[in-house]
């Protein structure tokens, strides 16, 4: 580890008291931020200071703090999850910021993700898309031996490439249309690559796409902003796959 570096940062943080309240940016300055801190730890430090001053802390979502649960959802300097590629906000470290820098922090912004408080949003729409068809219908205890159906390694690896989606919603936040196509496409792609997913293939894609529209997510216009911000590198081919699947399902 390089020796400890301290930097000063100015923060502009979105504060909003509740779903109906009017939001605004509030400014804070932290004089001594250790560059080995994670971004969320920096917010912890700020919140500790606010509470020592008997003020209300900033609300933000987080849980695993290692980039896998998909809870954290900060737009940092205009970019979902901030400046580092393939990095969720919780894995971003302060060493990527300059001394004296001003950092703006906002929540995901999308009609389908209403703000609950400050930086916390409601992402239940994702669960409803999954519930519409993001599964293979197999009841507990009805499964054949796991090796009964061989799956080629490339197919299985490709399914895994899509299965790693953490469901954070950065793709929606980055999209000018607030489309959830990358999220939905990833699940459709994973399950369509596996023989187990075949029986419900058509039904699934139609149900999931319909639900996505019902939730108020926009269409995909191929901006590819989603791919650029995805912390786990889901490829935009997921969307192409979903379209092909959809067309096949509707026509056949």
């Amino acid at each position: 580890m390089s020796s400890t570096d301290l930097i000063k940062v100015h923060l502009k943080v979105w504060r909003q008291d509740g779903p109906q309240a009017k939001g605004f940016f509030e400014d804070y300055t932290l004089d001594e931020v250790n560059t080995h801190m994670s971004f969320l730890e920096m917010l912890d430090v700020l919140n500790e200071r606010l509470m020592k001053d008997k003020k209300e802390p900033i609300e933000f979502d987080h849980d695993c703090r290692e980039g896998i649960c998909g809870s954290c959802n900060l737009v940092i300097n205009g970019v979902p999850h901030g400046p580092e590629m393939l990095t969720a906000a919780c894995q971003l470290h302060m060493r990527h910021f300059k001394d004296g820098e001003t950092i703006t922090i906002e929540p995901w912004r999308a009609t389908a993700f209403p703000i609950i408080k400050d930086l916390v949003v409601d992402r239940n729409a994702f669960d409803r898309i999954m519930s519409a068809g993001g599964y293979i219908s197999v009841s507990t205890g009805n499964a054949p031996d796991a090796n009964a159906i061989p799956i080629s390694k490339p197919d299985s690896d490709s399914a895994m490439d899509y299965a790693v989606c953490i469901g954070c919603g950065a793709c929606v936040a980055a999209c000018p249309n607030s489309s959830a196509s990358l999220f939905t496409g990833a699940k459709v792609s994973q399950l369509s690559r596996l023989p187990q997913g075949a029986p419900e293939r058509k039904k699934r894609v139609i149900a999931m796409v319909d639900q996505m529209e019902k939730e108020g997510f926009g269409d995909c216009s191929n901006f590819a902003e989603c791919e650029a911000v995805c912390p786990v590198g889901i490829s935009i081919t997921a969307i192409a796959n979903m379209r092909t699947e959809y067309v096949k399902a509707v026509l056949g």
Partner: protein
Amino acid sequence: MEVADKKYTFNWDNKIPTGPVEKKWSTHKNNIKLVNPSNKRKYNIIVVGTGLAGASAAASLGELGYNVKAFCIQDSARRAHSIAAQGGINAAKNYQNDGDSIWRLFYDTVKGGDYRSREANVYRLAEVSNSIIDQCVAQGVPFAREYGGTLTNRSFGGAQLSRTFYARGQTGQQLLLGAYSALMKSMKSGKVAVHTREEMLELVTVDGEAKGIISRNLVTGKINRHAADAVLLCTGGYGNVFYLSTNAKNSNVTAAWRCHRKGALFANPSFTQIHPTCIPVSGEYQSKLTLMSESLRNDGRVWVPKKVNDKRHPNEIPEDERDYYLERIYPSFGNLVPRDVASRNAKIVCDEGRGVGETGLAVYLDFRDAIKRDGEDAIRDRYGNLFDMYHKITDDNPYKLPMRIYPAVHYTMGGLWVDYNLMTTVPGLFALGEANFSDHGANRLGASALMQGLADGYFVIPYTIGNYLAETKPGQITTDHAAFDQVEKEITEEISKLLSIKGSKTILDFHRQLGKIMWDKVGMSRDEDGLKQAIAEIQALRKEFWTDVFVPGKAATYNKYLEYALRVADFLELGELMARDALERKESCGGHFRLESQTPEGEAKRDDENYSHVSAWEFKGKDAEPVEHREPLEFENVKLTQRSYK
């Protein structure tokens, strides 16, 4: 059951079926009372938690026709802490043809737990392990495969066979997403309602039986009542009592602790797993610790400088001035000794002043020789994602510099006491997954927690809950019952009290202070003096908390710090119980190391004559001493031996 020592009685029936261990589960299943399919829809079941245990249980019970309400803290069931598990899940498939069997998996797990678990439970776990893999594959879990299309395996610590199934470094994520998808399917069918951001704060009992819960809606702050015919606690482990751990930030003990206060015995609370390979603490602001998978010890060599306080750059320390202490002390197992042994030795060398890094609380895990032997590409292929994660966090390149690692709290083997049906001592209240105590004894083997969570949820509870429900009339208690009034009043008052203190210290101040006491005195090595001090210090800290904590905001809004305050309040009670449990168990076993009980070489010394039991604690009041009960452990199939890795 009466134990030889008169002081300890055990008046609960663990319901372990008679007969040979291989037959117990099938016999039991045949004898379980059944609920008529058309009656199932009359029963309401609450499942608290949507990790591997909760999601699999809720989905499976919904499929059977019960009405299920599932609850979780996060904004989606998919975000439960199980999502973070990396390494893999065990099963006795013997796909590698290396002689694996249910018996061997059973044997290894009992031995790995240092003979402090129940044979019957562990055998059942091994027995259902294969069905778990089948189920997950059918759901579309993309486990790693061979080119021929069949599933592949890797080996994990504590086993001499290759029986671990995995999905890259994200096995927990893929298993949880499988269970979550089953849950989403049940949600669509209307059999399961999922309440996200809704935290259980109390259990409601009527005549001693579980009849519902009180929860808080974490978005609006509203206190809600839910009645049910049975309550399943699938709320995970309590490692965060140490403040710093590899657990997710929201992991907590509240649900289990509140049930303990309502009569559920808490078993082996002090049995904690401290994982040897985690990224060390870098500063005061540290909020959690990150695990580096155990698999790294297959190729990495652990060392510290021979000299005390040697501040040289690691690459400048010549070979003959390095102490590869695990290889030196344990020539036959070397770097692959079990977790408890590796962790304790890291602490010893650091205590000697030979630790490395800025804080001196770290040892090296060095891949230099493996890279020389196999090439950088081979190492990248095996561990690339872990090396990247390490690089991201520390800004050091582990291909060029040895990793710095240190032990961290990772898993809690203790939990609510359950019988063979997974029912606690409160009738109608069940505990599944990490929240119960049943299968891992004093030390959990790698890749067995995922197995246990899914075994409990998919393959045990759907059967065993029938035994209780068949004798319970459905829907007897509704939320207008006086018991709900009472419990709701208590919890509302507790919240008002916390908000009214407006003290000078933050919740985090208290949590950190508790964590330090726990780590120093109830951590990797424990002794009588330290444990007694810990009890006194925790009691004092608890008092201070209730007079000087600052909890911001209001009750009826989203308020993360209020949630946090309630959890820390419970940790402050649990911590004391853990110290008491560690104090009473004067032997060393698995992750529990008592300085007073060591072999002449400084290894853990078990005392089977006096401590071959489960310690199950009964709550007697907030400031009253709890009472210990002892369930004797009987070993009919496995021979007890002192573990040796030399």
